[in-house]
C-alpha cells in the first residue's frame, strides 16, 4: 500500500518516464540510488503505468555455489509439495567438464523493476502483489497458461515457467519466484515473501544466496550476481575475489 501513497504524494501518480528518471539519477548509479532514495517508485518506458518496486530481491554468488541444487529442491518442495528441479524458480545449471567459474551459473528471478512478464500477461494474472511487498506474483486462478510471460522474459532461461499444475486439474499454469510469499508448504510460521523467509536462502549450505531490500543494478548481471565470499569462506581454501 505504501507505494500508492507515495506515488500520489510526489505527484507522479506512479508514472515516471525512463528518460526523466535517468536524467535525475545518472545511469551508472541506478541500483544504489534507487534502492536508497526511492524504494517505491520505479522508472518505466514512456507510457506504461508504474509498477511499484519489489521490496525484496535474491542475490547469488555463482563462484561460491557448490552445485547441490538444494535451493531448487527446497523451492518446489515449499511451493508444490514435491521435489522437482523443473519446477524450481531458481535454476542452477552446471557443466562438470568446464573450468571454474564457467562451470556453473545460477539464474534466479530478478523481480525486475520493469517486469516484462507483468507487462506481457494479457489477463493480468501476473502482477506486483501489494500484500506481499510487491513481489511479482502469478495469480493461478486467472492464469490461462498462455506462456506470454515466459516468452517476454528477457533472460535465459526464462524465469517464469509454464507447467501442468496439479492444483488446477493439471492445467498449464505459470510459476515464478514469489520469494516464497505464497508457498503452501512453507515451514515457517510467519511464512515467506519479502518480510518472511525464503526457502532457497534458508537451505543453501554455503550461503551463496542472499536477500536484499535494495534494488539491484538493473543493467546486466552485476547487480544480481555478487560476491558473498568472506574470510571465513577463504579459510576453507576458496578465493574471496
Amino acid at each position, binding site marked *: 500500500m505504501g507505494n500508492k501513497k507515495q506515488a500520489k504524494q510526489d505527484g507522479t501518480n506512479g508514472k515516471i518516464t525512463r528518460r526523466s528518471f535517468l536524467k535525475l539519477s545518472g545511469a551508472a548509479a541506478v541500483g544504489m540510488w534507487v534502492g536508497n532514495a526511492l524504494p517505491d517508485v520505479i522508472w518505466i518506458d514512456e507510457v506504461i503505468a508504474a509498477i511499484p518496486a519489489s521490496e525484496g530481491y535474491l542475490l547469488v554468488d555463482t*563462484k*561460491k*555455489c*557448490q*552445485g*547441490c*541444487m*538444494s535451493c531448487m*529442491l*527446497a523451492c*518446489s*518442495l*515449499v511451493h*508444490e*509439495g*514435491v*521435489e*522437482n*528441479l*523443473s*519446477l524450481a524458480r531458481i*535454476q542452477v*545449471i552446471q*557443466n*562438470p*567438464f*568446464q*573450468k*571454474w*567459474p564457467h*562451470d*556453473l*551459473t545460477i*539464474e534466479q528471478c530478478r523481480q525486475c523493476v520493469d517486469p516484462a512478464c507483468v507487462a506481457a500477461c494479457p489477463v493480468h494474472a501476473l502482477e506486483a502483489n501489494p500484500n506481499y511487498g510487491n513481489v511479482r506474483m502469478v495469480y493461478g486462478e486467472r492464469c490461462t497458461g498462455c506462456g506470454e510471460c515466459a516468452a517476454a522474459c528477457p533472460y*535465459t*532461461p*526464462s524465469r517464469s*515457467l509454464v*507447467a501442468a499444475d496439479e492444483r488446477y486439474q493439471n492445467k498449464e499454469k505459470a510459476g515464478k519466484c514469489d520469494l516464497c510469499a505464497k508457498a503452501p*508448504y*512453507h*515451514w515457517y510460521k510467519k511464512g515467506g515473501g519479502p518480510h518472511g523467509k525464503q*526457502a532457497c536462502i*534458508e*537451505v543453501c*549450505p*554455503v550461503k551463496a544466496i542472499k536477500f536484499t531490500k535494495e534494488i539491484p543494478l538493473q543493467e546486466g548481471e552485476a547487480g544480481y550476481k555478487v560476491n558473498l565470499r568472506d574470510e*571465513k*569462506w577463504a*579459510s*576453507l*581454501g*576458496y*578465493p574471496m575475489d
Partner: protein
Amino acid sequence: MNGYMGEILRVDLTHGKIMTIPTRAYEPWVGGHGMGSAIFFDLVKDKTIDGFDPANVVTIMTSPLCGTLVPAGSGRTEVQGIGVQSYPIGWFTRSNFGGRFSTMLKHAGWDGIVIEGRAEGPVWIDIRNRTVQIRNCRPLSLWGTDTWACQERIWNYVAGKGAFGDWLTLDGGGGGKTTQRPAVVAIGPAGENLSRMACLIHDAANSSGQGGFGAVWGSKNLKAISVIGTGSINVHAPKALMEARLRQTNTYAFDLDNRKGRPLSTVFDAPPRPVTLWGTPRGSKRPSEGQRPVACVGCHAGCRGRYESGLGNEAHCAGTAFYSEASSLDIQRRSSDLLNRYGVNAFEAWRGLEYLRVLNKEGVLGPGKKIDFPLTFKNFGSYEFVEQFVKMIAFRNDGHGHKSQTGADLGEGFVRAAEKWGRLEGEEGDLKTGWLNFPYWGLPNHYEPRAELEWGYGTILGDRDINEHCFNTIFWDVLISRFIGGKPRATAEETVKICTEKMIPFQGDHLMMDYGTENMYSEHMAKLVAWHRHYTRFWKQSALLCDFRWPDFINPYALDKVGSTGESEQKFFNAVTGKHFSFLDGIELGRRIWNLDQAIWTLQGRHRDMVHFADYIYQVPYGGPCFMTSRVNGAWEYVNISGRCIDKEKFEEFKTHFYHLEGWDPKTGYPSRSTLRSLNLGTVADELEKNGKLGKG
C-alpha cells in the same frame, strides 16, 4: 507410494526389449541394495554364472530419499550384479556412485533400472521421461570414446539445438521442460576392453568403481545410460521434511561462524571441501587457484571441487592418491583425469602400481626382464609414465597401441596377473610376503585388516572392500592429533559410550569397540561387525545415505557431542515416505538384506573354509600406526594397534562367534532355515536346500 515413482525399468539387451517391474512388488526391501538383491535373486536363476555371462543382471537402483532434501541422502545410486574383479570368485557385489543420476532417473519416472542380456553390437540407452530407446552407438561414434567425450556427445544429441542453460522441452513422453543436461553414466575404453578394474563414470568423476561393472557393461555391449526427466517426486510431509532438513543442518552441520572440533572428511559436520590427497606423502595439497566445492544433489557439504584450470575436476579421495608421488601437482591432477576418462578403478591401479614398482626394484619386471613389461620405471613421476600405465590397463596393450601380453594381463587385475606370472607360488609368493598388498578376495588393501578390524572382517565376510567409514573416522581423528596436533574430537571413553549407545540392538556393550588384541576375536567384536553390516546394508546402501556423512556418531556441534544417528535417519525416511519406520526397523531390514546376500554368495559357492585373508595378513605384522579404542588397565584409551597379525586359528573362533550371532550354520557358514524363516525368507531357504546348501539349525 511417496518417495517412489512406481516403476522399475527393465531392459533386455539381447532381445532389444523394454519392460517394467512395478516397484510395489519389491517395496518391502525399500530401495537401493535391498531391492537390487531381491530383483537379482528372482531374475538370475543360476547364481553360479560368471559376471561376463549375458545372463548376469545388473541393477541400478535409487531409494525413496533420492532427489529429496535429505542432507547427504539424496544423490547416490546403487549398482549391483555379479562382479568380475574379486578372486577366486567374482562375487555378487555392489558399488554406488554420487552425483545427480538417481535424481534424474526419478524425475524421468523410474525407481531403478535392470539390465539383462547382451546387445549384438555397442548400444546406449536413451531415457527421456517415460520414453526409453536402445540406440546404436554408431551414429554418435560413442564406442571408443572416453567417458567425458561420450557424455558430452550424448548431451548434445539429446539437447538438439537447445542452447546450454535454456529450457529444453523433452520430446519424450510426458513433455516438461528442464534446464539440465541428461545425467549420463558411461564406460570408458577400460570397460569396452573388459578390464576387470573398469568403472562406470558419471559427470566428471562420480564412479561406481568396485566390482568391475565397467567391464560387465562392456561385455553386454552397453556403453552408456542417459536419463533426463521432468516429473515430480511426491513427498509425504513436505513441511516436516523442510523442517527436518533445516534443523539437521542448523544443529549438526559445520558452521563457519562457530567452528568446532576437527573438520574431518568423513563426518556429518565436515565443511564443504574437496577430499583430495594430491601431494601426499608430504601432506595433501590443494591447488592454489580459483575453485569451488562440488556436492551431489541435496548434500549440505560437498566433498569434491572444480578448478580454474579444470584439472582434476570432481576428482576425489583414492582417485587423487594413486599417483601422489608424481613430480608435480599438475601431473597428479591430470593422472586423476586419466582414471576418470578411461574409466579405471583408482584403488586397484594405485596398489597395483606399488606392486609393479616393487617387482621392478627387485629386478623381475620391466622392459626385457623376466616379466617383460613395457613401462620404463625410471620415468616414474612423469605424465608420460602414468598415461602409458593407465592406457595399458584400459586398452590391454603396451599403452602405445601395440600388442603386449603383460599389458593384456593387467586387464585381468593384479592378482590374476601375478598368478599368471607365477608370482603367487611357493613360500615366498607375493601374497605371503605381502608384496602384493591385496588382502581380501584378491582386492586391494584399503584400511588395514590387521588393525581396523570392522573393515577387514566386514570385507572378508562380504564381497568387496567395504569402504564404509563409520568407525574409520576414529583412526583419522587420532592419527591427525598424534602427528599434527590438537585434540581428538572426543576422548576414547566418550567415543565408546556415544557409539555403542546408538548401536541397537546391541547398545551399551562397550566391549564391541575394544580393538585390542585380547578382544579382537570375541563375541563383542562379532557384534560390532554384525551391527556395521546391518546398519550399512540398509541405511547406507538401501536408503542410500552417503558413506562420507553418515552415521553421525560424534559431533562437536551437538549437545555432549552426541550426534544425530538413531534420531535423524528415520525422521527423514518417514517424512518422505509416510511410513512409520524406526531406526531399529532399518537395522533389522539391513540384517534381512545381509542374509539374502549371504544366501546368494552361498549359492555362488561360498563356504566358511574359503573365508580367509591372504596369507601375509596371518604372517607379516602390520607395521603402520593405527590408533583405535581399547582398554588399558580397565580404562579406555586410544591404543596404537601396530605390529600385529591376525591369528589364523583364532580368526576361526571369531568366525564361529559371528556365524552363531547371525544364526548361520557355524560349520559351513550357510544360512539356516530357521534364521531365514524368521526373516520371511522361506523361499530363499528353499532355493538353498534345492542346491544342497541350507545350513543346519
